[in-house]
């Protein structure tokens, strides 16, 4: 067993510490400057991953409210704004007084519009001033300068309105990751892309005659978000979910054969149903909340 040899010498207790402090003294007074920073006048260069005040890119934000949902302290809220450029939008605000700076909101943001800056001098005399409305934290240029840590890749996104069910994309895909799935009731088919297998080669987007598939940059999600499921019997085709969806992942498709013949012989328009493009879904649960007919089932989301 190795025992530390205790040196009870004056060299060890007196001379060595004095030499060491003299070395620091010379280093900090004569050869250079001390290690510390004169805080209010000089500041440290904080790393980009420092979690300070939030900043929001209004143009990238889609107003899905995932940040509000995931916030453990319930310090964020969605605020309705009339923007001259973007129209009527909903954007999140943040109450710094309750924020614990966990950074979940920035991590969960599907479009990487919300970030946390290195701004840390947030103290104030009044509690009200700790509440930052979306306009206070708006900075449309910050998100471009921010080097996103989440891995990003480009994936084909389907525009269901343009899709003609030609199945060419499924034939072209070298990884065999596009499955052609029939959409019940509409008589149409749509490609369902397995993102786990996709290599972002972009061949499906090239081959698509209607340009319904578009390569879009997507950030990898850290969180598993709930997915909506349609209960077809209850769907009335009211389009509430389609209007509510911030990610444009809900399409209303007509169901041929459901036209009703009126008394004067004219046919009504066919009934519509919702189609969820789950690849686009950000899991915010807005469609679930908008639906008044219990036609959408979304386990794990509160109404």
């Amino acid at each position, binding site marked *: 067993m190795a025992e530390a040899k205790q040196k009870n010498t004056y060299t060890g207790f007196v001379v060595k510490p004095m030499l060491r402090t003299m070395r*620091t*003294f010379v280093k900090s007074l004569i050869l250079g400057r*001390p290690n510390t920073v*004169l805080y209010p006048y000089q500041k440290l260069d904080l790393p980009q991953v420092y979690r300070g005040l939030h900043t929001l890119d209004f143009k990238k934000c889609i107003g899905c409210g995932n940040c509000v949902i995931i916030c453990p302290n319930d310090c964020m809220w969605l605020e309705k704004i009339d923007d001259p450029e973007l129209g009527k939008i909903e954007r999140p605000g943040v109450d710094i007084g309750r924020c614990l700076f966990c950074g979940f909101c920035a991590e969960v943001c599907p479009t990487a519009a919300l970030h946390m800056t290195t701004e840390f001098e947030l103290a104030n005399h009044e509690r009200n001033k700790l509440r930052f409305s979306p306009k206070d934290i708006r900075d449309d240029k910050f998100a471009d300068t921010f080097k996103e840590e989440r891995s990003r890749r480009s994936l084909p996104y389907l525009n269901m309105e343009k899709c003609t069910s030609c199945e060419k994309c499924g034939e072209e895909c070298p990884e065999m990751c596009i499955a052609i799935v029939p959409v019940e009731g509409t008589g149409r088919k749509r490609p369902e892309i397995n993102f786990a297998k996709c290599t972002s080669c972009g061949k499906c987007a090239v081959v698509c005659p209607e340009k319904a598939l578009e390569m879009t940059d997507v950030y990898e999600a850290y969180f598993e978000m709930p997915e909506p499921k349609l209960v077809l019997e209850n769907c009335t085709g009211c389009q509430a979910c389609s209007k509510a969806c911030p990610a444009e992942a809900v399409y209303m498709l007509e169901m041929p054969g459901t036209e009703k013949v009126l008394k004067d012989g004219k046919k009504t328009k066919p009934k519509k149903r919702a189609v969820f493009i789950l690849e686009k879904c950000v899991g915010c649960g807005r469609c679930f909340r908008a639906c008044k007919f219990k036609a959408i089932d979304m386990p794990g989301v509160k109404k």
Partner: protein
Amino acid sequence: MNLYEFCYGIIHWLVDLVNNLWYWLGDLLPWWFGDFFTAVGDFARSDGHLSVMTILLEGVVILVVGLVNVLNFIWIDRKLSGRIFDFYGPYYVGYRIGGWLQNLADGIKLFTKEIITPAKADRVGFLVAPIVFVGSSVLVLAAIPFSHNFGIATNDSGAGIPAGVLFAFAMFAIAPFAILVAGWSSNNKYTLIGGMRSAAQMMSYEIPMLLIVASVLLLAGGFSFGEVVDAQHDIWFAIPLFLGFIVFLVCIVAEVEVQPFDLPEAEAELVEGWTTEYCGMRFGLFMMTSYLRGYAGGALTTALFLGGWQGPRLIPDEFWFLIKAYIVFFVVEWMRWSLPRIRVDQILGLGWKRLMPLAILNLLIAAAMKTMGWF
């Protein structure tokens, strides 16, 4: 011209100025008043009154110089501790002169604080302890001259107190008594432990230190600072009595109670030691006085071992003295911020088992050198 003559001139001029007005006023008044005025004016011009006022003025001059040095010392202590621990010391309050004004700002802050006496404290002791502590420490300065011409003297010759070294060390040794009184009267266990530690510590360092002073006086052949410094004209006593110099330095660190030996204060163990219950400017006086004692320690070491005001004639003698005192203080502070505090039993062991034999050995060396006729 020495300090006494300078102050005497000022006092004489002032008294003459006031006396002219006084006699003129007396002439205006009826005769019985005039006689009284004349008597008072004659008293003011008498030699006894003039010399007493001169000595008072000398005391003020020496005290002001000492207090300015104390401000410097506090600044050096803070700056040095900062740089030794790799941070900036005081910086913003007067940053053009290196944060020197921080001490004044702290002093103003302490002045504005409330002075509280604990309810169960012994009020007389609580009040007297700071007075004794500060007064005895200031009296040390009275005995230490900066040069032959710059020191408190009682006559035209400019010679200081005949047994100045003894007087300085006697005053220096009163402080532990004041600390003990302060610790006891505060009625607090931390202060009491601090006061008792101070008394125990004094037992250990005082005797070796005075033995070394005795060896220095033996070589110098006189008790006053002038004689001790003159005896070092050829060689500083730090060289023949190197052993004694080291022991004296350790003892002086213990005497001024800085870090390796600051057992009475020991802020990590006893909250603030014996100053726990003192607040406001009372604490400020304690802190100021501890640095005053540091300055006095440096000055004593300079006078006894480092040749006092001896030096090349490039700058005045007084500045040589101050430079040497500052260097000694620098070394003391360097030890202060480098070494850990030792235990109570360790300082007793150090004082009695190590320093005491070394001091006696040093006395023997001094006696041998004196016997050989080298000094």
